[in-house]
């Protein structure tokens, strides 16, 4: 698989998701099922590596790119991971420009509150995950 195809497929998966692992179903479909560029086991290993590495969990796509196309694939995957993040700039500009309007401010406040609720839910899932990992690492727990 060429690096350009890796970039385009990963960009599609990442740009249509809203969390680090949100791109997983699309990557599974494109890389494992449709194009068979990597195996299901390799995809699981990529996710594990992403979870075990400091920094963004979404960096697991770099492992996918590496397994699919070597170092050029890894570089393509890294670029695909970065590209959608720049959409934050126009969003930020719009929010700054309209933030003085009460309804816009209220909408942003509501998004922040909902984000906190989503964070709490993620925290609970992470706590369960941490407990499982601790149980495996320290059998006496």
């Amino acid at each position, binding site marked *: 698989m060429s690096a350009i195809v890796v970039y385009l497929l990963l960009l599609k998966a*990442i*740009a*249509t*998701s*809203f*969390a*680090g692992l949100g791109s997983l179903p699309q990557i599974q479909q494109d890389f494992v099922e449709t194009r068979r560029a990597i195996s299901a086991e390799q995809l699981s290993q990529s996710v*594990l*590596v992403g*979870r*075990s*590495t*400091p*920094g*963004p*969990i*979404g*960096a697991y796509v*770099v*492992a996918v790119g*590496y397994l699919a196309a070597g170092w050029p694939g*890894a570089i393509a*995957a*890294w670029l695909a*991971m*970065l590209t*959608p*993040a*720049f959409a*934050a*700039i126009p*969003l*930020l500009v719009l*929010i*700054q420009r309209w933030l003085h309007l*009460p*309804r816009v*401010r*209220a909408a*942003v*406040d*509501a*998004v*922040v*509150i*909902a*984000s*906190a*609720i989503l964070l*709490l*839910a*993620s*925290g609970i899932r*992470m706590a369960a*995950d*941490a407990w499982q*990992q*601790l149980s495996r*690492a*320290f059998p006496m727990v």
Partner: protein
Amino acid sequence: MLNEHRQESLPLSRFTWTVLRDVNRTLGGGLASMELLRRTFIANGALDETGNAGLVAVSRLTPGTNILAYCVGLGWLLHRWAGAVAAVVAASLPASLIVCVLTVALVRIQDYPVVRMLLAIGVLVATLLVFSSAASLLRPYVRRPALARASIIAMVAGAMLLADVTPVRILLVSAVLGAALSGSARPSDVE
């Protein structure tokens, strides 16, 4: 949203180093990293709580990895395009290189008990940071007149979460609900 004076006194190189350090020392994803960045940049005066809340909202609404969107937004606020590019590279390049190395050596690394223990402790610390981040986001809203509106939004968001509604839909519905409820409290209520 940010302290202009502080922006001038925080050189791009120092900003980049701070992002690199804070993002690449946490396990468990970007949520913990966001909390570290919030603490660092609020402590040095480059950002305030309102600015951080805006960045969190934007990062949630941006497609892809939340922490990278947060870093792009933070970099853009402080140093425009140079800051955005420097921040996203600093936040992602070290992790990506480690991912490649680990991918090659995965099986052997998994077998080391010490590595498994360190990973477990790392995830636990990251979990605590996530709870701390959620608390800091909610803190401005648990006061006086804004509390009722915030409670309604939080309950609706929680109900949608339990109903397996996707995060982006939860955020969009919350935004609409917040705008619709804006008559019940002035914006200054949540300052």
